[in-house]
């Protein structure tokens, strides 16, 4: 990868523009790393556990706090959901309801009921429900 640095005393802060022939997974991951900044830290009591986005199934609000679920465990997060929404890779993580963000790469099944409820099954058997208000967001994330 060729990296160019241009110094412009007139600009307000550093910006990064990625020029690529196509939007590949590599380009998405690079953009996510540049956007995301520091790694996500989950808390198990007083123990800090660094978390990789690839391990996260979902983030959800519960009892006035936010939790993150991986395949093996559930941790507390210090961030709010809206902060996570901005921080996590927006091509992979999408808000599906007022209190839940899921990793689209961990979706194993999608079911529609007669009442319009969309049920998502994640790796490991976790089930969550998509609010109709957020279907448009999922479609935008998937470029539909």
């Amino acid at each position: 990868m060729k990296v160019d640095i241009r110094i412009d005393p007139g600009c307000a802060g550093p910006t990064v523009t990625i020029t690529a022939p196509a939007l590949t997974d590599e380009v998405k991951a690079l953009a996510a790393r540049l956007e995301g900044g520091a790694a996500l830290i989950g808390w198990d009591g007083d123990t800090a556990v660094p978390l990789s986005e690839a391990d996260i199934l979902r983030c959800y609000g519960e009892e006035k706090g936010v939790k993150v679920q991986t395949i093996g465990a559930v941790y507390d997060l210090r961030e709010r959901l809206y902060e996570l929404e901005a921080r996590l890779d927006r091509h992979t993580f999408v808000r599906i309801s007022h209190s839940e963000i899921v990793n689209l790469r961990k979706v194993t099944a999608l079911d529609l009921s007669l009442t319009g409820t969309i049920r998502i099954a994640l790796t490991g058997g976790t089930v969550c429900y998509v609010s109709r208000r957020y279907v448009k967001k999922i479609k935008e994330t998937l470029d539909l």
Partner: protein
Amino acid sequence: MFIDDKRRALTRALVGGLLGVAVLIPLGGLFNDIVSGGLISMGIHTPFRLVSADLTLRLGSAPLAFAVQLALYFLLGAVVGVSTLPFAGDGPTLVLRSLAHFALTAGALTLTCTLLGWAWSWQAMAVYLVLLAAVYLLIWLGRWVGWYAEVSAIREKLGLPPGPSPLKWRETLPYLPFALLLCLALPMALRLLDAADVPVLSGLLYPYLLLPVGGFFSGLSLGKRQGLCLLYPVLCALCALVFIPLARLVSNMADWPLLPIAAGFSLAGVLAGAALRRIRN
């Protein structure tokens, strides 16, 4: 009650009510003549009857009847206006609110038809309500097809296997031969074998034993395998509907009760099977 945004609901009700009055004055004028004075009741025929003759007789005053009639038109328009807003996102709340709105609309329609004399018998009123229910079902079906298309597109984009077919028609198809056998071929065969004076097979055995049991257990089997397949009771009803006029060729028996028996018991079976499947999963 139906809408979370009460202010918008009130605005829509108001606009709907005014539009209802504007639309129903000319339409109602034509209908008033058809049912209250013209074609149905064989009374004095005029091309346009602004005020319902029935209501005028009831209230004893044409201006008062007109005022009540306008209020009814406004009410009908208002309930339709409220229906243009989303009741809820999805799920049980949407179902409950839709049912509540249907009940309200049916009530308003029944009141209007009764007072204005647009329903000359309970059968006529039943037809109006069935048509109203059909409209609601069609609208629901249209929305559901849209949701289905969205979910299919998302599934495909995520690389997931395709889900069940719309309304599970493909999953119901293997049960079509049984539905044809139970609701068409079997009653026809029994009717041909029956004695002319005492039709025990097709008049007693079939409607009270074979059809309910066969309908229920076939529905149960389908429900357990594939979940909720609502097309199956419709299929059974359609087969029974085909049988009824055919049976007229060989006998004069009233076979209309077979329709609700075929649909009802197969539906009960499908629901029971789907519930058992859900518990098992």
